[in-house]
């Protein structure tokens, strides 16, 4: 398995280098982890371990370095299960002048490239993963998915209480087990750092890739408006305070970069490398695809 993992990492790097991307490494320990309502950071001294490299990578984009990708560890407190580890490997990439659909085209090409690279290794006796990643990925809007599987439309009338529960209990279990699908156009209430839809402002330009029912990646047409970004951070800080969660300081350096240099229109994505490897090898537990996975937190 660890040899396959090595092949996957090599295939990912080869794919991006071939497509003109620059590999970057941004700080793993930071003073201000990205504010997200349901993502908790692990303290490291007076600072925190990163939950994602997103804000630093966007600062590089604001400086004009693009397109960029990064492969490395991220840490999220309290996330442990058959599909979660507190420490996991994230792949993020960003393109200037691109939107979430351009990023989707990248993702399809990347996953196929990676599957092809691993398939050669699997000839040595490793069982196939059971998910056909070469078949086209249909796109299903979040609105359609909830109407079909949960009987309501979160875009027409958002219900924060039901959204996550129905996603876990009704929507995700209905997604195909043997192929990929893209859930697209999330309600603006769960936009995170995505910009609102140009055609329909009730939705955010965000999609998530599911392979065999497993959530693999989350992509946005990135929010670039500094005022809107500041508002979302402040709302999130209030929500976290109301939840009794720790409220991290605002990332002032990131907001200053948006104000001063400005973030050009761009698209970006975060992809769970461990989960991609699970899909490609048929592993049922994330611990099986990482070194010392049984011991990891």
């Amino acid at each position, binding site marked *: 398995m660890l040899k396959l993992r090595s092949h996957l990492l090599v295939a990912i790097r080869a794919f991006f280098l071939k497509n003109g991307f620059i590999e970057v490494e941004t700080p793993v320990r930071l003073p201000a982890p990205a504010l997200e309502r349901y*993502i908790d950071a692990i303290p490291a001294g007076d600072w925190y371990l990163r939950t994602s490299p997103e804000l630093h990578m966007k600062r590089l984009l604001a400086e004009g370095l693009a397109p960029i990708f990064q492969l490395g560890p991220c840490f999220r407190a309290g*996330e*442990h*299960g*058959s*599909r*979660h580890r507190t420490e996991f490997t994230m792949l993020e990439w960003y393109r200037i002048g691109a939107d979430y659909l351009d990023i989707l085209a990248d993702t399809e090409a990347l996953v196929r490239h990676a599957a092809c690279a691993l398939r050669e290794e699997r000839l040595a006796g490793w069982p196939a993963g059971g998910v056909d990643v070469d078949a086209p990925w249909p796109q299903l809007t979040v609105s359609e998915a909830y109407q079909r599987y949960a009987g309501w439309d979160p875009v027409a009338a958002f219900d924060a209480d039901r959204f996550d529960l129905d996603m*876990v209990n009704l929507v995700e279990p209905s997604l195909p087990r043997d192929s990929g699908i893209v859930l697209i156009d999330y309600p603006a209430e769960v936009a995170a750092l995505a910009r609102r839809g140009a055609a329909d402002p009730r939705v955010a330009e965000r999609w998530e890739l599911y392979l065999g029912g497993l959530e693999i990646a*989350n992509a946005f047409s990135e929010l670039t408006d500094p005022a809107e970004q500041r508002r979302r951070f402040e709302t999130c800080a209030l929500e976290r305070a109301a*939840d009794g969660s720790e409220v991290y300081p605002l990332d002032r350096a990131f907001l200053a970069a948006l104000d001063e240099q400005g973030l050009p229109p761009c698209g970006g994505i975060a992809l769970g490398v461990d989960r991609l490897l699970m899909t490609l090898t048929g592993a049922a537990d994330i611990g099986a695809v990482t070194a010392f996975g049984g011991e990891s937190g």
Partner: protein
Amino acid sequence: MFSASDLRKGLKIEVDGHPYVITEFAFVKPGKGQAIYTCRIKSMIDGSTQMKQYRSNDKIDKPQLEEKTLVYSYKDGDHYVFMDENYEQVLLSESVLGDQRFFLKEEIEVNVLFHNDRAIGIELPIFVERKIIHTEPGARGNTATNVLKPATIEGGYAIQVPLFVNEGEIIKIDTRDGTYSERVR
């Protein structure tokens, strides 16, 4: 109180005033959403199970449980009477004990579990020995060891035993599932 992040397999929690133990546990967290902790919980009173989901901010009650070692004394109508070292009596009904009642013997020590000072169950020694009071003789010449036949032990408990076990013999019974373990003599 427990918070959702304390939940794990084997943890004992209280739901609607009843004590439960978590027998299956899964952590899921949909993209950018809140963590959802899915548990199968088993009632510590009647063994019934149900699914329960908690979210990150949920608080879960902690049951007030206590275990005491008591001595089984005697049966009084539908009730089984246990005593502590001060001869204080604790009564458990037939419905709470279920099949465990057949494996009680006067003067044996058992662990009695209390929830809010109410006795809700007992923990027996894993093995007890009982005499077969009735079983048909095994078919002659049939030496297969995995074929079972019905038998009745003292107290009236019905059990499946191998063909070679005869009336009047003593067998060892596993009290966890009430099955035959081995022949003693």
